[in-house]
């Protein structure tokens, strides 16, 4: 087991290395001079030259990569050109809303989607099944911001149950914090619910025709336990996989949701950085989100072996 964990950890190194090389090359791949991009349109030649020196752009490219990489590994993500702060400060300012929104969404989505998928599989072909599948196709097709504005229109603008936009920090009180996150969470979870419910249904359908499910029913086990103890445990691996892979979808959704609800999180920061062509921030955000995504999928792999003792490494 420990050997497996170590091997899996080592396997993420080449992936993150490719991500790092890509993020590093991002600026160099542009046809124009990165120093000129950073300096902006009104910069003088001296300012551009100054930035070139500061960035070490006169060094050979491999040297540049190692200098940049070792800084990143030491936690030095550079300085934002636009916000006039270090990128690390900027990220720590903005991480709380994003983390809150994502955790709420994952919790809600798993709690709703798994039972929905189980129900759809149990009543395969019924109206419930069709509704779940219909919802799932809809969830993939309706863009996040359309869902967001529809919810704002109904629940904030018309019914006035929830605030339209904004965010309250958790140390200003957990009540307002959760209250402001209700609509964003609902918005973001739709596509995630669609994804997980669909995979749960497929995986359960496969398992429900197994002999041990029939045996469990034959010995008189109550249906709830048949479904959740016997069937779901065996169907869990693809479901957990899709929860992990769906994080990519979630990160994309966070960017849009935070823009719709004016939440000052990392997603909003990404858009602001792109609009301002603030490359150190863009690079840092991509590195961080990708790292989180890879890390979560590593954890998912490790969770398999706990869920399913049949898997041997």
């Amino acid at each position: 087991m420990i050997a497996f964990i170590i091997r899996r950890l080592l396997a993420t190194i080449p992936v993150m290395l490719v991500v790092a090389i890509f993020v590093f090359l991002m600026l160099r791949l542009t046809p124009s001079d990165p120093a000129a991009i950073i300096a902006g349109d009104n910069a003088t030649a001296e300012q551009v030259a100054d930035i070139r020196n500061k960035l070490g752009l006169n060094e050979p490219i491999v040297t540049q990569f190692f200098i940049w990489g070792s800084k990143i590994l030491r936690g030095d993500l550079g300085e934002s050109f636009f916000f006039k702060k270090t990128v690390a400060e900027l990220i720590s300012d903005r991480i709380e809303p994003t983390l809150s929104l994502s955790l709420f969404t994952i919790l809600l989505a798993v709690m709703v989607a798994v039972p929905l998928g189980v129900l759809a599989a149990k009543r395969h072909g019924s109206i419930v099944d069709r509704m779940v599948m219909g919802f799932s196709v809809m969830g993939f097709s309706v863009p996040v911001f359309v869902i967001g504005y529809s919810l704002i229109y109904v629940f904030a603008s018309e019914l006035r149950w929830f605030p339209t936009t904004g965010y309250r920090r958790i140390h200003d009180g957990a009540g307002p914090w959760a209250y402001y996150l209700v609509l964003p969470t609902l918005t973001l979870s739709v596509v995630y619910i669609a994804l997980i419910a669909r995979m749960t249904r497929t995986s359960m359908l496969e398992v429900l025709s197994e002999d041990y499910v029939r045996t469990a029913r034959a010995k008189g086990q109550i249906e709830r336990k048949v479904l959740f103890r016997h069937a779901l445990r065996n169907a869990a691996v693809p479901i957990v996989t899709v929860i992990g892979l769906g994080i990519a979808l979630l990160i994309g959704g966070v960017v849009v949701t935070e823009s719709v609800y004016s939440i000052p999180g990392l997603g909003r920061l990404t858009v602001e950085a792109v609009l301002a062509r603030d490359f150190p921030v863009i690079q840092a955000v991509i590195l961080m989100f990708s790292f989180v995504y890879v890390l979560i999928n590593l954890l998912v792999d490790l969770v398999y072996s706990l869920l399913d003792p049949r898997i041997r490494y």
Partner: protein
Amino acid sequence: MSVEPNIAASSSPLTAVPAARRQQSSMARAFRNPSVLIGGLVIVIMVALGAAAPWLGTINPTEPHTSGRNKLPGSEVTVRDDDGKPVKIAYRLGSDNLGRDVYSRVLYGARISIFVGITVAIISVIAGMIIGLFSGYIRWLDPIVMRIMDGLMAIPAILLAIALVSLFRAGIGAVILAITIPEIPRVVRLVRSVVLSVREEPYVEAAITTGTPMLKLLWRHVLPNTIAPMIVQGTFICASAILVEAILSFLGIGIPPETPTWGNVMAAGKDVFYLFPHNIFYPGVMLALTVLAVNMLGDGLRDTLDPKLAKRV
């Protein structure tokens, strides 16, 4: 974002779909599939609306009218044209904050969305197919290419697209490129998995033994097996690309704001959304319908053309 079918596709060990004859009959079956028919019909309507936009009572979709700002659907405004003559404008679906006609912008927007969707699908499938064919066939190349693809896939697709658009001057070409690159790795993995399984087939071994040159072998014996899964995958990529284009435009980092795209109409309307929801509502409905139709087409094609894949989803 149809990430879910992608996941299913990349994780399924596809075995060869015997070519030519079987495909013809499954093509015929595809045209009788209800999902294919309904999805196809809606797509045809959208294409027709976009193509016939100039003859459907539209006015110049990019021309602002100062006296016609933020009008509700059904309003009529009299403006003066270049010669000073009064011209009556009927805002069937209202106008945006610059007085541009939402009806015209939404109809013309269909052109951009569909164009971007189809272009991205074609380019990413062709590029992915070439890389995948060689990567799957040439043993020493395979690990290198797959590490690069793993790295690219570790960056959440929308984030990668956002990062890429930040590198170029805003424009439709940059947007297409930025959406295409994140889609390629999934195509590569799918093609490669087909190649790996086909490579062990007796007819391929026979062709190798008789000294068929590699390019001819790939073209004649391997490529035809990838056609069916590629049509299915291309359809899902098209749906995803339409959504991502709208998201980029909506965030203000995609196609320049004066160009009529559904995302741009919604972006222009987001600040006055509470008073004038028509700016979000009409393009949102068109966008959702189109993506839904393309996804339905994809589901139907997958069920009929690629039954091995259908069983797993």
